[in-house]
C-alpha cells in the first residue's frame, strides 16, 4: 500500500528564449528557491531529489552532477530521469513514486532546460532511426503537421479551429507573468502566420524556451504540517509508444491517435472510478506541442468524441472562463523549456486547485485537475490532482 502524497510547494522561473545572464545552475536555483519559499522549507528538509532535462540540449553530460549546487542535492538521495519531451512529466511522476514509497517524507522534483545553449532542433534529429528514418524524416514539425492534417480530415475541423485554440492559449499566456510568448494574437494574425508544413503555421508551434520548474512533494502527515492548501496527488500513470512514427509505418488513421495517452488516461480513470471525465475533471493542463494538439488529444482523454473537439473551442468550453478550461497558463505553445514543460503542467494545475494561479486563475472552482506530458514516440504521462483527500 502506497503513502498518500501531496504537492506542498511549486516554483518556476520566468521564461525566455535566451538567458545569457545565468548558467544552468543559477537558473535552476531560481525555481528551487521559489518552490522552497512556497513550501516554507529549507533544503535540509528535503529527503530526496528527482531531477531531469535533455542533456543533449545543454551539451553537458551528467547534468545531475552539474546541477547539484543549484538544486541543493549535495549528499541527498535521488536520481535523474530523461524521457525526451515527456521528461518534465516523468520527473513529476518519479517524484511521486519516491514520495509514495514511504522511504522519504519530502521529495523535491526539478525539471529544467536551457535551450539557448544550442540548436535544439538539430539535437532532436538524433531521435530518428539512423538506419531507416534519418535519411527521410527529421524533427517534430512534420510529424505534428501530418497529425493535424489527418485530424482535420477525420473530424471536419477547419483551419480556423486551430487558430481559435492558439488565440485562447495566447490570452492565457498574456495573463501569466511567467509565460514566454505573449503575442496579443487575433484569429487573423494566426491565419496569416507563415506556414511551416500544412496546416501548421509558425505561431502554432511551441517555442524553444529557457526555464525551470520545481515541485515539493510530501507524504500525508508531513503535507498537512507543511501546507494549509496541500494539493493531493490522487494518481499518476504513463504509457510508452513505439518508436516515432514515420511515413509508411502504421495506418494514417492510427497516427491521429496517440495510443499511449489514451492508454494512460483510461488506466487512470478506471483506477479512480472516473466514468464521465467531461464532468468529473474540472481543468486540464495538457502538454500540447502545437495548437492542434488539444483538439486531437481531448478525445484521447475521453473528454469528447474526435468529431466534437473543435466544437468545444467554438462554444468556449475550454476557455479560461469555460466549463472545462484547458491550458489557462498558455500551455506549451506559449512556454516550452522542454525538460520543465511537463513539470509546469503539474505545477500550473496544482496552483489552479489552490486558487493561487493569479492573473490566469480560472473562473470555475477546481476540485479535480488533469496534467499531461507528451513526447514524440516516448512516455505519455497523465496526473490526477485533487483538492480534497
Amino acid at each position, binding site marked *: 500500500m502506497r503513502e498518500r502524497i501531496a504537492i506542498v510547494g511549486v516554483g518556476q522561473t520566468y521564461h525566455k528564449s535566451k538567458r545569457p*545572464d545565468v*548558467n544552468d545552475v*543559477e537558473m535552476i536555483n531560481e525555481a528551487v528557491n521559489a518552490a522552497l519559499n512556497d513550501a516554507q522549507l529549507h533544503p535540509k528538509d528535503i529527503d530526496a531529489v528527482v531531477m531531469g532535462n535533455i542533456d543533449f540540449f545543454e551539451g553537458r553530460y551528467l547534468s545531475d552532477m552539474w546541477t*547539484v*549546487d543549484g538544486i541543493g542535492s549535495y549528499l541527498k538521495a535521488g536520481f535523474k530521469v530523461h524521457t525526451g519531451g515527456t521528461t518534465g512529466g516523468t520527473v513529476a511522476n518519479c517524484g511521486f513514486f519516491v514520495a509514495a514509497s514511504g522511504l522519504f517524507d519530502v521529495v523535491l522534483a526539478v525539471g529544467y532546460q536551457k535551450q539557448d545553449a544550442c540548436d535544439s532542433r538539430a*539535437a532532436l534529429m538524433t531521435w530518428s532511426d539512423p538506419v531507416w528514418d534519418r535519411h527521410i524524416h527529421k524533427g517534430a514539425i512534420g510529424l505534428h503537421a501530418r497529425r493535424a492534417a489527418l485530424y482535420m480530415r477525420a473530424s471536419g475541423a477547419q483551419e480556423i479551429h486551430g487558430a481559435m485554440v492558439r488565440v485562447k492559449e495566447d490570452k492565457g499566456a498574456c495573463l501569466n507573468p511567467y509565460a514566454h510568448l505573449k503575442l496579443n494574437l487575433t484569429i487573423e494574425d494566426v491565419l496569416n502566420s507563415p506556414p511551416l508544413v500544412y496546416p501548421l503555421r509558425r505561431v502554432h508551434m511551441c517555442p524553444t524556451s529557457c526555464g525551470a520548474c520545481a515541485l515539493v512533494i510530501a507524504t500525508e502527515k508531513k503535507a498537512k504540517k507543511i501546507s494549509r492548501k496541500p494539493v493531493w496527488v490522487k494518481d499518476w500513470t504513463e504509457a510508452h509508444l513505439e518508436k516515432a512514427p514515420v511515413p509508411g509505418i502504421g495506418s494514417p488513421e492510427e497516427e491521429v491517435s496517440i495510443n499511449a495517452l489514451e492508454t494512460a488516461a483510461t488506466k487512470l480513470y478506471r483506477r479512480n472510478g472516473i466514468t464521465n471525465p467531461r464532468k468529473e475533471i474540472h481543468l486540464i493542463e495538457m502538454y500540447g506541442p502545437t495548437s492542434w494538439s488539444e483538439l486531437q488529444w481531448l478525445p484521447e482523454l475521453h473528454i469528447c468524441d474526435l468529431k466534437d473537439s473543435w466544437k468545444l473551442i467554438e462554444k468556449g468550453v475550454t476557455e479560461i472562463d469555460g466549463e472545462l478550461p484547458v491550458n489557462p497558463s498558455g500551455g506549451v505553445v506559449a512556454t516550452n523549456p522542454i525538460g520543465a514543460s511537463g513539470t509546469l503542467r503539474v505545477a500550473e494545475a496544482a496552483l489552479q486547485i489552490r486558487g493561487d494561479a493569479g492573473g490566469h486563475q480560472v473562473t470555475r472552482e477546481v476540485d479535480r485537475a488533469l496534467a499531461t506530458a507528451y513526447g514524440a514516440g516516448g512516455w505519455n504521462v497523465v496526473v490526477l490532482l485533487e483538492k480534497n483527500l
Partner: protein
Amino acid sequence: MLLFPGKIIMDYSHAAGRVGSRFLAELKKSKRLLAIRCRTCNRVYIPPRLTCKTCFHNMEDWIELDGRGTLLTYTTVYYGEPVLDREAPTTYGIIRLDGADTGLVHFLNEVKQQDLRVGLRLEPVFKNERNGNILDIKYFRPIKSG
C-alpha cells in the same frame, strides 16, 4: 553486416553565469582573482559559484585573492588529447590559493620535473592579451625568490 556511418556536429554556447562572468571579467580587465565566501560557514570558493554546497545560501561576499597558492597535488600527462589544444607532455595540478578553501585546477610551468613537490609555493602567470577565459592565466609557476 552493414554499418551506417554517422556524425553529429553541434555548436554550443555555454553561459558562464552571473557569478562566473564577474570573475572572468575581472580577470580580463585587471588580472585580479575574485573568490566568493559563504556567510554561514565562511568557506571561500574559487572559481566562485552561486550557492554554498552545504549551506545552500546564495553567496554575495566577494573577496580578492593575491593569486599565490600552494600545490596540493600534480601529475604529468604524456599523451595528446584531440580535444585539448596543448601538446603533450603537460603538467597540471590542484592549487589552493591563499585565502581559499577550494582547489583550483591549472597548468604548471617554468618548473623542472624533479623540483615538483606537494607544498610548492606558486604564483600565476597571466597572458598579456586576455579575453575573459580561465586560460587568461597561462599557468602557475614557483614563486621567484625575492
